[in-house]
């Protein structure tokens, strides 16, 4: 039976909406810049190896004494004083916020590793391959105030073998409020 012309055909219209949306999403993501691109799946082998531009800090021998590897859990929270001590003694700091926030200001020496921008899994694997000691403390922070990005990054780092992950819960806002060293720009 033929429907009268102009009859409502949601079984045609709605799949067309979804199809157009999917097509546009694929095309726009393909041409998006690195800070705007998302991986359709968690780990995409099509992502090119990223250039992390790593320059690991020179850690103090006291780091492992005061902050030994965690035996029973992937991560542990630390407060501002502990974070400041670790930063002044050469621990690796990772900033889990968006690249734009990182560029505007980050803890001095911290490397930006946004959990919401493309290529994260490849960057994490490269970090694990280049790190001189997976048992050395690594401090991860984000925006404080209940921000969970640092915990997401910690989980990914733990999976690739990092054994000593410390979450600085106060994050960049607390560090900046205490007028401790910060850098601006794309480099640590």
């Amino acid at each position, binding site marked *: 039976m033929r429907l009268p012309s102009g009859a409502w055909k949601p079984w045609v219209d709605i799949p067309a*909406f979804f199809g157009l949306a999917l097509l546009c999403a694929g095309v726009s993501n393909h041409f998006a810049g690195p800070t705007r691109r*998302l991986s359709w799946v*968690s780990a995409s082998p099509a992502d090119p190896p990223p250039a992390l531009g790593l320059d690991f800090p020179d850690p103090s021998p006291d780091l492992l004494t005061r902050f030994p590897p965690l035996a029973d859990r992937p991560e542990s929270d630390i407060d501002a004083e502990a974070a400041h001590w670790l930063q002044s003694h050469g621990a690796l700091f990772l900033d889990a916020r968006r690249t734009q926030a990182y560029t505007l200001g980050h803890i001095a020496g911290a490397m930006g590793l946004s959990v919401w921008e493309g290529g994260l899994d490849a960057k994490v694997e490269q970090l694990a391959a280049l790190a001189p000691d997976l048992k050395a403390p690594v401090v991860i922070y984000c925006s404080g105030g209940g921000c*969970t*990005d640092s915990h997401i990054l910690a989980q990914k780092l733990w999976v690739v073998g990092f054994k000593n992950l410390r979450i600085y819960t106060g994050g960049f806002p607390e560090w900046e409020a205490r007028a401790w060293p910060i850098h601006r720009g794309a480099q640590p």
Partner: protein
Amino acid sequence: MINPLNGPWNRWLPHLVGWGLGLVFLAAAFPKIADPPGFAQALHGFALLPARILAPLALTLPWLELWTGLALLAGLARRSAALVALALMLSFSGALGWNLHRGHAVDCGCFGSGAAHTTEERFRDMKLGLGRNLILALLALSLLVPRRDGREPAP
């Protein structure tokens, strides 16, 4: 006595509602299309969805909003677009309402990711967003129901 709802106003009302709803959807879509990672981050904050679908949803949903808005503005497939709009508004309302119920403050992300807010600001924005979404859902519903004169809405 002249009933204003029986005049030309009644004929134009669905168009006005469609245009208004379409503009709202376009305004909501553009910032999210421009920043999919920001929208993915906002979706994660709702703590309702499995992590593996966040990226596909963050990429596709804004474009669905865009096409829905364009269809409403152009008056093409208006009832289907209204149905999609209604489903989206009810979904967003449900997500906001559930997080309000469990006392979990989130950044809505409805019109793109904005500056960080305090917890009190987030709860206030969630309540405003819930009210706004319910009104938009009612407007979308009005495009689906038969008119007062018994005529079916335009397809």
